[in-house]
């Protein structure tokens, strides 16, 4: 920093301190403007992070096929199990495909019980859904081939049924059948916050068993599954892959299945976010405009009452730009101070919103930097006219002013 700037900053700070009340009042507009921006953007950022977390859990490179909605009174539609194999062969870039049967059941073990989501699937599901084992092993091909009654427990199921011991090797009753526990899953971030963009399945509540071992008792279509999940090696082709998969299933069943593509949902969410950003930006612009006008007002008053000082400084050799710089530094100091207080207030606001409205909030560090840069820009922008006015004062006239 040049010595002149250091001196101007000290000088500015001192003349602002000279009028503490006036300085504080004049920056209120900027304080509240910046606070509003920080608080509102924290809401947007919170929503964005939550979406990202859900997408991360679901996988940006995954597609879930679900049967088309069935008409009222008809049995729930299913997808043909065979489609999973053809998908694996046909869909370009596919890495893993897993069929799923989904049943809400109650699970018991050792006198405890829990309401769980029983998922009948294949070993490929571990890859398709990015499952991480906490202990034991996952389902194996032999388990499926032999219809073995083995189970892998989600983290919260394991905790609920076996709070004091390892569940490995223990038995769990699911519906009417007993299964032996061979593994447990690691805890996953659960998409349970309300207002979530995507309703993901809470895999912490899941019990995974081999697909043929999940008895649904009197299923009209024993070869039908409720979902087919697949994951691609590369997320870029996910939309096309979903289209291919839908076409393939339609050819065998006559009806196109529903395809849930988290990446598409993310895009959708980004468009919504953009609208929100525009609204936030407009609020920010208006409040900062109001704040800036306050700054301009106070700077004009300051120039008016320090006209003689301007004359003296000009006589001592200040160039016009030196005078302008002095007032610009002062107005910038005002607004940056306002920006600092505003950011702090905005952070408090974000915490309050999260506490009382229940919306997730998050503050991106860059947002604070942007707030300060914007505050600086307001100081320079709205300080410009007063500074220019001061610089243009005739030194002789200015010296004569009392």
């Amino acid at each position, binding site marked *: 920093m040049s010595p002149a700037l250091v*001196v101007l900053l000290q000088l500015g700070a*001192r*003349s602002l301190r000279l009028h503490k009340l006036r300085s504080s009042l004049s920056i209120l507009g900027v304080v509240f403007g910046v606070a509003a921006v920080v608080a509102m953007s924290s809401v947007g950022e919170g929503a964005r992070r939550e979406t990202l977390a859900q997408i991360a859990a679901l996988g940006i490179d995954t597609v879930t096929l679900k049967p088309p909605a069935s008409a009222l009174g008809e049995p729930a539609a299913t997808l043909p199990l065979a489609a999973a194999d053809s998908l694996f062969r046909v869909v370009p870039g596919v890495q893993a495909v897993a069929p799923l049967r989904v049943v809400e059941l109650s699970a018991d073990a050792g006198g405890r019980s829990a309401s769980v989501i029983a998922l009948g699937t294949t070993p490929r599901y571990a890859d398709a859904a990015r499952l991480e084992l906490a202990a034991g092993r996952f389902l194996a091909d032999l388990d499926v081939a032999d219809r073995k009654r083995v189970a892998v427990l989600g983290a919260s199921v394991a905790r609920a049924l076996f709070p004091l011991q390892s569940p490995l090797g223990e038995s769990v009753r699911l519906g009417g059948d007993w299964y032996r526990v061979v593994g447990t899953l690691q805890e996953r971030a659960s998409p349970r916050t309300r207002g979530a963009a995507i309703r993901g399945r809470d895999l912490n509540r899941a019990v995974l068993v081999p697909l043929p071992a999940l008895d649904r008792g009197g299923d009209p279509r024993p070869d039908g599954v409720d979902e087919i999940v697949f994951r691609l090696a590369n997320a870029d082709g996910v939309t096309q892959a979903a289209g291919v998969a839908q076409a393939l299933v339609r050819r065998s069943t006559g009806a196109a299945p529903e395809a849930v593509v988290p990446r598409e949902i993310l895009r959708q969410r980004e468009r919504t976010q953009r609208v929100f950003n525009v609204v936030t930006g407009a609020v920010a612009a208006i409040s900062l405009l109001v704040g800036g006008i306050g700054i301009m007002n106070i700077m004009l008053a300051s120039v008016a009452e320090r006209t003689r000082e301007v004359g003296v400084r*000009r006589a*001592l050799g*200040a*160039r*016009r730009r*030196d005078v302008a710089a002095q007032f610009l530094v002062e107005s910038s100091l005002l607004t940056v101070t306002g920006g600092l207080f505003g950011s702090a207030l905005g952070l408090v606001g974000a915490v309050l919103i999260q506490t009382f409205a229940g919306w997730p909030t998050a503050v991106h560090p860059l947002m604070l930097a942007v707030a300060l840069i914007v505050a600086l820009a307001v100081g320079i922008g709205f300080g410009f006219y007063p500074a220019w006015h001061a610089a243009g004062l005739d030194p*002789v006239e200015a010296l004569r002013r009392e």
Partner: protein
Amino acid sequence: MPLAHEPLGGLGGVKHPPDEGNAPLVVLRDVVRAYPRGASQVVALAGVSLEIRAGEKLAIMGPSGSGKTTLLSILGCLDRPTAGEQLFEGRSVASLGDDALSRLRNRAVGFVFQAFHLIPQLTVVENVETPLLYEGAPLHDWRPRALRALERVGLVHRADHRPSELSGGEAQRAAIARALVTAPRLLLADEPTGNLDSRTGDEIRALLDELHAQGATVVLVTHNEALGRGAERVLRLRDGRVESEERP
């Protein structure tokens, strides 16, 4: 009052090239300064010609409204003539832009005002340092140079006081130190004793005489006959013209 024994920097020791040894510091020829007022004009200076030599002490006297202060502003390059020629150290001032004039005021001219015009929120030493900000002097030079200037006016002990804590005489000394800090060639004083009682006025007059004795070129605007008589040359203005020039 003790003065420093060091030479007076540029104040007296004007370094002219040898062939310009006798060139006047300032030359005015037929200088007119008129201000527009509504449709008409107010003529503050109606053709003033004047030469000021280095090391001279000149008093400009005359009734109020005679154009004394306007003349001083033009001499100090704070104002520009409406017509006429003005040379500073042989260079035409009319061709200089605003930045160059500011630089000239900063390096070559020191102003002393009747009402001192110290900046109230700065301490005495900071007031004296102000011209150094515009000179672009390195920051570590500021304090020693300002203290040296304060030493020359005998005010070092008040360096950290605010102007509001000074007596009138002290304030004017601080202002003189501020005028001296860039070692200017020309010291301009506008009624320097006008706001002081006669005893402190005499002190300031003695200080200016001392600076002059050390080689400073001093131009005074004053009503005060005693102050004027102390000069080598007295210029009397009336209605924007030089009425008489005398050497008391």
